[in-house]
């Protein structure tokens, strides 16, 4: 490898020897193409015409009235596929094409990254396999069906708890056996180098746009930027735009699951300890000896016991703050945004909204929060119906 892929001491590439050449190849290709004129032009056209960028920054007036300060939503939910994931799958998919790869694999939790990969597989005519935990397949069946309609094969992973962690395990195992012709389109800004760097690169458009939109629409920068954190790609994407603006607070919201004290959650940065999983040294939810804990969250996309390395560094340096929102708080926030604005947020993004609700009365009315509304909640309607029945 040319670079160490470290964020402070975090990150790196802790992988079996067999994966080193293919990660080297990926690193080399990324640094060759990411500034290449033709590549940049093609990606920018696809982002605009296929994905629907730029996404709007929307003043959620009625939601703001409820919490008592100004809330702006960065509408990544309006992108093609319904989430920020398409930014990354277009970038990496195009990279795969430039590298001459013909097959894509990806892991997925909520199915948003799986769907965004399946879309790109269809767009570029690549054979696509999506690894997904069996529990997630059950709770995100709409996305599973959409992936299949796009022509992807969805492979159910039974190991462990049948969630995102197990899907990554099996995708890595599959990749080990198919390194020569298969591109692993990793979905979050975590895992082994160079993925945290690559995924962040393709998600920085969120932060760049949001900052510009703040200056144009509000005439100033926001007081805080809030995003949910599973692996951390939407959060690092929007944080990156404001990281040098020291007066802007950056807040990452993890999945508090049932509750932090119950141990049934996925709040890695809030409650974890440093270790090594999925190729990176990062905060992890683990037992005393280092066996990885089962996690729990109403949101499949946040249900993961590790996190991206840059978030670990941002936590240690204090540049970003990390908090947790429990399932019930996220479900309340989902209901509030839907009722007050007619916008269904993804349960992942609902965690970020839940943090704002928790700040009611703590900020003054002129303060401004920008929330990354990373995805739309259509996929979650049946879960919400189960947990919060509407009745007749």
């Amino acid at each position: 490898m040319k670079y160490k892929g470290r964020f402070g001491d975090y990150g790196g590439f802790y992988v079996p020897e067999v994966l080193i050449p293919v990660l080297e190849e990926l690193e080399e290709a990324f640094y060759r193409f990411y500034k290449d004129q033709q590549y940049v032009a093609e990606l920018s056209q696809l982002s605009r015409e296929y994905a629907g960028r730029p996404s709007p920054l929307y003043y959620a007036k009625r939601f703001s009235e409820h919490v008592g300060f100004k809330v702006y939503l960065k509408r990544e939910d309006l992108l093609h596929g319904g989430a920020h994931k398409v930014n990354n799958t277009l970038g990496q998919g195009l990279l795969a094409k430039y590298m001459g790869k013909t097959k894509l694999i990806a892991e997925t939790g909520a199915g948003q990254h799986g769907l965004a990969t399946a879309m790109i597989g269809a767009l570029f005519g690549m054979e696509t396999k999506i690894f997904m935990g069996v529990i997630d397949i059950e709770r995100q069946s709409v996305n599973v069906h959409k992936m299949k309609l796009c022509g992807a094969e969805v492979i159910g992973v039974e190991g462990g708890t049948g969630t995102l962690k197990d899907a990554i395990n099996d995708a890595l195992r599959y990749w080990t056996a198919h390194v020569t012709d298969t591109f692993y389109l990793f979905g979050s800004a975590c895992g082994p180098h160079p993925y945290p760097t690559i995924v962040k690169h393709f998600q920085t458009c969120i932060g760049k746009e949001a900052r510009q939109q703040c200056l144009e629409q509000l005439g100033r920068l926001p007081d805080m930027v809030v995003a949910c954190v599973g692996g951390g790609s939407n959060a690092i994407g929007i944080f990156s735009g404001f990281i040098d603006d020291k007066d802007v607070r950056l807040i990452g919201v993890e999945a508090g699951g049932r509750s932090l004290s119950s141990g049934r959650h996925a709040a890695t940065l809030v409650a974890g300890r440093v270790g090594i999983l999925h190729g990176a040294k990062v905060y992890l939810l683990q037992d005393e000896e280092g066996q990885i804990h089962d996690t729990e969250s109403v949101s499949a996309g946040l249900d993961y016991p590790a996190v991206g390395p840059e978030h670990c560094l941002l936590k240690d340096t204090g540049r970003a703050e990390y908090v947790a929102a429990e399932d019930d708080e996220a479900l309340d926030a989902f209901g509030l945004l839907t009722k007050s604005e007619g916008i269904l947020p993804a349960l992942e993004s609902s965690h970020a909204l839940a943090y704002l609700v928790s700040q009611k009365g703590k900020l003054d009315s002129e303060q401004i929060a920008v929330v990354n509304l990373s995805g739309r909640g259509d996929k979650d309607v049946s879960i919400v119906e189960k947990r919060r029945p509407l009745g007749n």
Partner: protein
Amino acid sequence: MKTYKQVFSELKGQNRTALIPFFVIGDPDFDTSVRIVKTAIDAGADILELGIPFSDPIADGPTIQKADIRAMKSGMNLGKALEFIRKVKDYKDIPIGLLMYYNLVYQYGIEKFFNDFHKAGVNSVLVADLSIDDADEIVGPAASAGLDTVFMVTPVTKPERMKLIASKTTGFIYTVSLLGVTGSRENLSGTIEGLVGKLKELTNVPVCVGFGISKPEHAATVAQAGADGVIIGSKIVGLIEDNLNDREKMLAKISTFLGEVKSAI
């Protein structure tokens, strides 16, 4: 304590190849696992490769994953692993290599891990998810604890990298015979003979071959290609899985199979 060097040089004198069975410590439970390993020693094992179970073994196929789960369910932990190793060493002074994942070493404390496990009788620790690039994190502490180093080479490892790996290896090179995770295979990978030959040109460090070796014929081919050792994991771990209801049959099957391999190499 018997060293890899001693074993390989003894075998060389007899024109034989080392038989290296792999088991997950504590699979399916502590006591049976001890009996299994003793059986393997009696059947002619020259070196033992022992796995410590991990919740997320990304380099392992379904057979070893299930063994990890069985061992963890029966309460395996690092304290018991130390006890296990001492028991095996009491039975026979045979070199033991551990094969495991980095997080367990890291959480235990790298230096303390190597010291404690070396004291119990371990000769080397191969960390499956730690490549040569970050090996400095363990090479120093391993050497000061008195351990040999073992690293992997695969069919996609480039020659200059092979040389680098060989230069950091004091025990043996664990040569992965195919692209993929652990697991028994019907046929041996066609690339293995060339790979062993290449390594033999590049280094004098002993070369052992693992992954997918499931039949005495596979072992014979690997031995004829010039390998110093043959590592057999999933095939015999599969025999444990297939005979969970009959411990005596399980031991007999493992003994017979290893005996057949032994005579083939």
